[in-house]
């Protein structure tokens, strides 16, 4: 990028050389055209510099083979030609299939969304492409909060102008980050924070519904009683929009309020996200309780996503087990799953200063979120709640790449050994 890179450096008011990499990476990954982030402007002309194409490299002709270097150890007849054996993949058929769930509803369907999203429907483990191409590409929902919150700089820098305006934030995430959906986290409703009443919280949801035309997920504050009140009100206000309530829990069941929330979801045509903490029996129990109120195609599961480095192996394995069990016929687990991949930022390695060797954090952080999400993608997750635009962009790109079959070109990597950097 040469001169232009220098130009960027000068334009960048904050933090000098290292800091700029964050937004620059995003630009390069995104090919977004002209947008402005933290005083760094890159226009489409510059972006053309980066076009993902290979320099075709000819396969190096093999030099003539040297004379056999030593007499063979064992005196058996050695093959002179490659004996042909056909590879046949081991194909399984599964008695079970994941239920397809639609999020959002168009005008014709009783809502007002311009776009809806379908997730689930798989009849094979995640990206076992030799058995099946997933019927619905996994989708990404961008996180929006209903009040200004404290965020690592690598996240904040992309959204700081809209942090106090959920509708503008949602618009940015859809238009610039290319999110398929928006999750509005109503954290201000937390009795320990602002204790925002349900009426006011549902106004925020209405504003976001007006600002964007993608499906909406409504996030609570984690207090089961307060969430129940808020969800009931939101369900009413967003009647017919097929929002997803995030989330319904066994804590609500314990408090005796699960039924009323699930009933409200049913009555107004919404979807429930059933949250449990890395325990399949509890996931099944919660689903059984929800079946009393909701049709099966209105339930998505969140089996918990722990951050890379903070227990992701438990999340990975619980999702892999859930998916295999579902395909093997366990009907109580045949729901699509959602991963809160933004949880990646709970890991200190995502945001903390660890010394110059591990910088820049502006890349380490979004990479942490990206790898957390991709690990869950390969375990079978159907939708992701994410935050960093570069992470969102990359996961979308990977999903597209995974769905595009037949594009491997052996000649392009045949001579990787001699690549010069």
């Amino acid at each position, binding site marked *: 990028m040469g001169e232009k890179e220098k130009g960027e450096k000068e334009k960048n008011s904050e933090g000098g050389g290292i800091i700029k*990499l964050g937004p*620059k990476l995003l630009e*390069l990954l995104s090919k977004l055209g002209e947008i402005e982030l933290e005083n760094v402007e890159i226009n489409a002309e510059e972006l053309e510099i980066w*076009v*993902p*194409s*290979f*320099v075709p490299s000819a396969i190096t002709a*093999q030099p003539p*083979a*040297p004379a*056999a*270097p*030593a007499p*063979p150890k064992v005196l058996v007849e*050695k*093959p002179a030609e*490659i*004996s042909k*054996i*056909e*590879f046949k993949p*081991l194909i*399984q*058929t599964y*008695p079970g299939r994941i239920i397809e769930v639609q999020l959002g509803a168009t005008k014709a369907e009783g809502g007002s969304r311009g776009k809806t999203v379908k997730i689930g429907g798989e009849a094979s483990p995640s*990206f076992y492409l*030799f058995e099946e191409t997933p019927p619905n590409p996994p989708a990404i929902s961008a996180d929006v909060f209903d009040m200004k919150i404290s965020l690592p700089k690598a996240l904040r820098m992309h959204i700081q102008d809209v942090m106090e305006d959920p509708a503008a934030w949602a618009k940015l995430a859809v238009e610039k980050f290319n999110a398929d959906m928006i999750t509005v986290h109503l954290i201000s409703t937390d009795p*320990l924070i602002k204790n925002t009443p349900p009426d006011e919280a549902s106004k925020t949801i209405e504003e976001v519904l007006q600002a964007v035309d993608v499906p909406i997920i409504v996030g609570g504050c984690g207090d089961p009683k307060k969430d129940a009140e808020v969800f009931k009100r939101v369900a009413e206000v967003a009647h017919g929009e097929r929002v997803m309530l995030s989330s319904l829990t066994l804590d609500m069941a314990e408090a005796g309020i699960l039924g009323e929330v699930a009933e409200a979801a049913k009555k107004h045509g919404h979807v429930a996200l059933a949250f449990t*903490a890395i325990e399949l029996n509890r996931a099944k129990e919660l689903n059984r309780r929800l079946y009393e109120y909701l049709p099966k195609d209105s339930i998505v599961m969140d089996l918990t996503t722990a951050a*890379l*480095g903070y227990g*992701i*192996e*438990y999340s990975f*394995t619980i999702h892999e087990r859930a998916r295999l069990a579902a395909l093997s016929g366990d009907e109580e687990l045949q729901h699509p799953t959602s991963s809160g991949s933004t949880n990646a930022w709970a890991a*200190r*390695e995502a945001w903390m200063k*660890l010394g110059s060797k*591990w*910088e820049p954090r502006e*890349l*380490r952080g979004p990479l942490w979120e990206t*790898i957390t999400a*991709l690990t869950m993608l*390969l375990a079978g997750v159907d939708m992701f709640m994410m935050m960093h635009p570069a992470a969102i962009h*990359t996961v979308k790109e990977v999903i597209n*790449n*995974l769905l*595009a*079959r*037949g*594009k*491997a070109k*052996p000649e392009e*990597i045949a001579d*990787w*050994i001699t*690549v010069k*950097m």
Partner: protein
Amino acid sequence: MSESEIKKGVRELSPLDIYMLLPRTNCGKCGEKNCMAFAAKVVNREVPIELCTPLIEEEKYRSQYAKLKDLLAPAVKEIVIGAGENSVKVGGKLVMYRHELTYHNPTPIAIDVTDEMPDDELLKRVKEIEDFTYDYIGRTLRLDMIAIRSTSNDPDKFKSAVEKVAGATNLPLILCTFNPEVMKAALESVYERRPLIYAATRENWRDMAELSLMYNCPLAVFVPNDLSLLKSLVNTLIEYGVEDLLLDPGTFPEDGLSETINNFTMIRRNACKGDDKLLGFPLIGVPMTVWLNKEANKEVLQWKEAYLAAMLMTRYADLLIMHSLEGWVLLPNVILRFNLYTDPRKPVSVEPGLRVFGNPDENSPVMFTTNYALTYFTVESDIKSAKIDCYLIVVDTGGISVESSVAGRILTAQTVADAIKKSGVEGKVKHRYLIIPGLAARLSGEIEELTGWRVLVGPRDSSGISAFLKEKWPPKNA
């Protein structure tokens, strides 16, 4: 056919399957009380079958021993690269999914150097690879190997570079060239180190096979995106007499990604679930193929290499060859590797005992949590990020989380009382208020009775500790 049916057909072993082939004399030479107890440990791969010395030494058990070896053979062969102490084991996978047992032999990560790097640059890079360390949950995470690429295609240059690297490090080596003559020149110097020969292809396989046999070094087979040819070549190489093989079905970045992931998955499925011996070898992923894209910005390629490595590790790569040496690229990968290769049967735990945060005094809060590593590190992180001065008692629950240990009666008022006594916290604070995890709320009454401490029920999630303390500390009636 369902998942479980296939699995059973291939290698779902019961202790009884092992027991029936043991001497059944209950001699105790293996250290177990009887053959059945030994069989149970063998089936869980806690001990090797070779601990049964009669089985190995006595002629009459020879065929039983052979049968047991076959029964216990991993679906993916274990290959040793390197010699003696300075070696890595690659592959050796018993299962396709980690929850079926556990994954063995964490994916070694090799970093590349070339035979055209100036000496000082070469040695500097080798040192950087050796010096890479990160401390994580009390473990030191490192890089494992060096892949030396011949970009010169010149036997002398390659030999010289390989010798320099071998002189500078004990790390196991991968010699990368498709030219047998170039390979031979380097092997002559370092074959005693048992490097990996990368790689045999459809063109050079006979010469590479000869080198592998002559120098007794493992051989990689590189056949990009043609699994029939890969399998054919493996079969031919085995007929040729080469036993220690690794497979590289090609790592295609960008839009070849679907083929890459699909190939790795098909190979591992056939090996683990279909008992396909020709594909039962370790898989090599080469995320550094992203660097073939010469037009992209450097950070973008590092970024792509980082997530490609992670995806390959999750999807069955048993060895990775990478180029980026940047901390931010490698850190998530060495941590992901540690995570995926954690034995799912054993909860990860931390040392129980008293932890001191910040500069607490005699009026500072006292809390407790369990010694499940994930719980502990989460609580620790929350306390630190909120800059709280306090004492935290880590109760030994055998590495089980708060919720599960309460349910399982492992975390009880008694264990909490014992932990308080043992911690010595009673001599450090003058109050007697104990903040307990919200998920242990039901123990409040009993703890108060047993310890004489007043219980404050804390938040269910440690992220709420800060808010909780703001509201509830110091206790109003203290």
